[in-house]
């Protein structure tokens, strides 16, 4: 009996083995194919999402990531001793309290001469916000723009004494101006600023229009015959508009809301009245933003494109956007510096300013914002 195989038999045997092998491992290529298909769907879905969020991504890249560059302060004006380093310590964890400096200003350089970086005006609004997610509380503190204090650049260098709102312009506006405003607030008022959000006038208009306007109860007639006409394409920085916001419940679009928070000439409370109105609109805006869904983010980003700068991390943005969705309006604490208590009218080089009583101001500030 011969064990040898004919060539034909051997070939048949090899073919049969191949077929058996292929039947034994059919899942390997099939699994590979399924994984490939799944990957294809995932990539396609991600592509669809990325294309949808592209305006948001573009705005985020342009608006965020500018970190605070503030050096340690030397001393707090009016304080007898130098303070320890107040280099910002960023809060860790989404539930930790954090402090944000909200800055609102024109960024059109309307007072800038050609070829110069100087001439940027000032921050029209400065509100320090402390969000404590675990306590469910928000505190807003407004600084009057004419408060006469030492100004500092982002590197800690002195910019001389002037109105607190002028640090932005003294540092040349833009991100340098923001650094200077943060440094000035931190050093003069002995507080940490964890993050900032800066928004231009047109950005505020766009944002409010995008959310369909805001609803507020105007506390009194806001009348102004000398309201700056510097948005909507005006080329004359000294042109004026007339503003009349009537008292009572109002649904305001972006332009009307800006007029309401920016007008200051016919106000018995002067700039204090304006800061009250600014916080009022901010709370109303929070109410609208708390209704945001994922589908609105793109439009909001487009509205803010080129008009906002911030370093708020993504983890804390939802808390800030809604100022904490779980935080009721009634638990928002509004804090203002009071005329004749925290500051008084004064004149420096012929310019009307508010002379601060730093002792009184620091006492008030530290009731709500921890000292460094």
């Amino acid at each position, binding site marked *: 009996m011969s064990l040898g195989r004919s060539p034909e038999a051997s070939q048949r045997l090899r073919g049969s083995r191949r077929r058996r092998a292929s039947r034994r491992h059919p899942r390997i290529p099939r699994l590979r194919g399924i994984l490939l298909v799944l990957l294809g769907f995932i990539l396609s879905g991600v592509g669809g999402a990325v294309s949808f969020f592209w305006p948001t991504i573009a705005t985020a890249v342009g608006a965020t990531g500018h970190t605070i560059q503030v050096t340690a302060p030397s001393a707090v004006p009016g304080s007898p001793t130098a303070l320890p380093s107040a280099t910002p310590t960023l809060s860790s964890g989404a539930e930790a309290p954090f402090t944000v400096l909200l800055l609102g200003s024109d960024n059109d350089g309307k007072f800038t001469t050609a070829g110069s970086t100087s001439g940027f005006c000032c921050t029209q609004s400065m509100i320090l916000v402390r969000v404590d997610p675990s306590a469910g509380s928000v505190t807003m503190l407004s600084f009057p723009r004419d408060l006469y204090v030492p100004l500092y650049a982002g590197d800690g260098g002195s910019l001389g004494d002037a109105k607190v709102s002028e640090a932005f312009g003294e540092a040349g506006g833009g991100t340098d101006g923001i650094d200077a405003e943060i440094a000035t607030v931190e050093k003069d008022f002995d507080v940490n600023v964890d993050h900032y959000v800066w928004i231009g006038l047109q950005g505020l208009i766009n944002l409010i229009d995008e959310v369909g306007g805001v609803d507020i109860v105007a506390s009194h007639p806001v009348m102004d015959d000398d309201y700056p006409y510097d948005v909507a394409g005006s080329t004359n920085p000294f042109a004026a508009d007339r503003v009349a916001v009537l*008292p009572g419940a109002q649904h305001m679009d972006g332009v009307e809301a800006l007029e309401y928070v920016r007008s200051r000439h016919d106000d*018995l409370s002067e700039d204090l009245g304006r800061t009250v109105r600014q916080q009022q609109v901010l709370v109303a805006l929070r109410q609208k933003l708390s209704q945001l869904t994922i589908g609105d983010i793109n439009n909001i980003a487009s509205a803010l494109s080129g008009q906002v700068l911030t370093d708020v991390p993504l983890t804390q943005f939802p808390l800030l956007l809604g100022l904490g969705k779980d935080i009721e309006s009634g638990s928002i604490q509004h804090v203002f510096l009071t005329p004749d208590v925290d500051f008084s009218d004064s004149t420096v080089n012929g310019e009307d300013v508010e002379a601060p009583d730093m002792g009184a101001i620091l006492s008030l500030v530290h009731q709500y914002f921890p000292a460094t």
Partner: protein
Amino acid sequence: MSRSRKLLTWVVLLALMAAFGVGVNRFLASHDVAAFAAASDPTQVHVASQLSLPGTVYFADGGGLYSLTGTDISQLQKRGQGWTQPVLLPGGAGLLAVKVTANYYSDLYELSLTGAVEAQLSHDSGQVTATALGNDDWIYYPAVGPDNTLYFSYDYPKGNVDDPAECCYQVDLSIWETTLGTTINRSAVVHSAGISQESWANYYTGGDVSPVPLNDGGFLYVDYEDAYGDTGQLSTPLAGAVAGSEVSQVRLDPKPLYNSAGSDGAALTQPQDDCAQPALNPDQTEIAMICTPIVNGAPSSTESDLVVASFDAATGTLGPLDRIVTGTMAASPAWSPDGTDLIYLAPEAGDSYFELWYVKGAATSLAPHAKQVTSDLDLDGSAPVWMR
């Protein structure tokens, strides 16, 4: 599987993948919040038959004037024209309304009940330049008494009489009166040609507004004062008010002195009640108004209550304040022709635009229940008018 079948399978899968990507994109795009949608044209809005109000309601929306009769809304004046604050002439003979040229001036017009302009009652100088705004004026809050006395808020004279250099920073509305039909223009006001100033606003408060004529003469109005008092004389803010805010009071018939700050009218409400926008029922025994509650130690910026109180014009006294609608931003109440029900404005739940609401039996002690009449509109905050 044949090669061609395999190829077809991959083509189908690739198409499905592309469709999935597009689907994800469209799914995300479909999640806009309805509350951010633009308001509707009032003539396209459907009012449910069960909310059909007797008579006709006139209202302003988006710079146009409209009437609501039963469940039908008709346009009286086109949108975007600056129309606001419609009021009835005595006996329902027609309407008065304000037409605003934004950022410049406003004027007062008489219209028929179908919206046709019958006469222009005031004439601003209409400078409309950014450098001569001092020649433009605001006129608001028209109201006509049974004797055809026309009351209105006007920002003349502008400027601080004690300091003319401060001319352009002080723009306060004061209440003036004339006889309906008198032409109102700056020269007429300057020379007091049949037009007289009835109130003198507290400086830099924005002024006196919302005159309501009384049947036996005189009028109610609303004035504003600083939380530290009329002249900042208080060391602490008025009870319930926060530093930096202004509070409103409903007052009765001021007694102005010649060419200087005169005395305020008798106060009907307290500063801490922060009441404004008064509306009297036809026999003037009940007053509806809007009062801002104190929240967290300060007047609320997001809530205003609809309040009803009894009123005795003879003694100038007000009964206890009954807050019949709370927890929303109520505004601009108006009584029904028979004086029993109220309409007012408030945002729709989850929306931001002001809509028309209705309260039956507002003057009774029974707990009233508010019903929403319109939706998707953008009413401008001025009071509607309700006539038979």
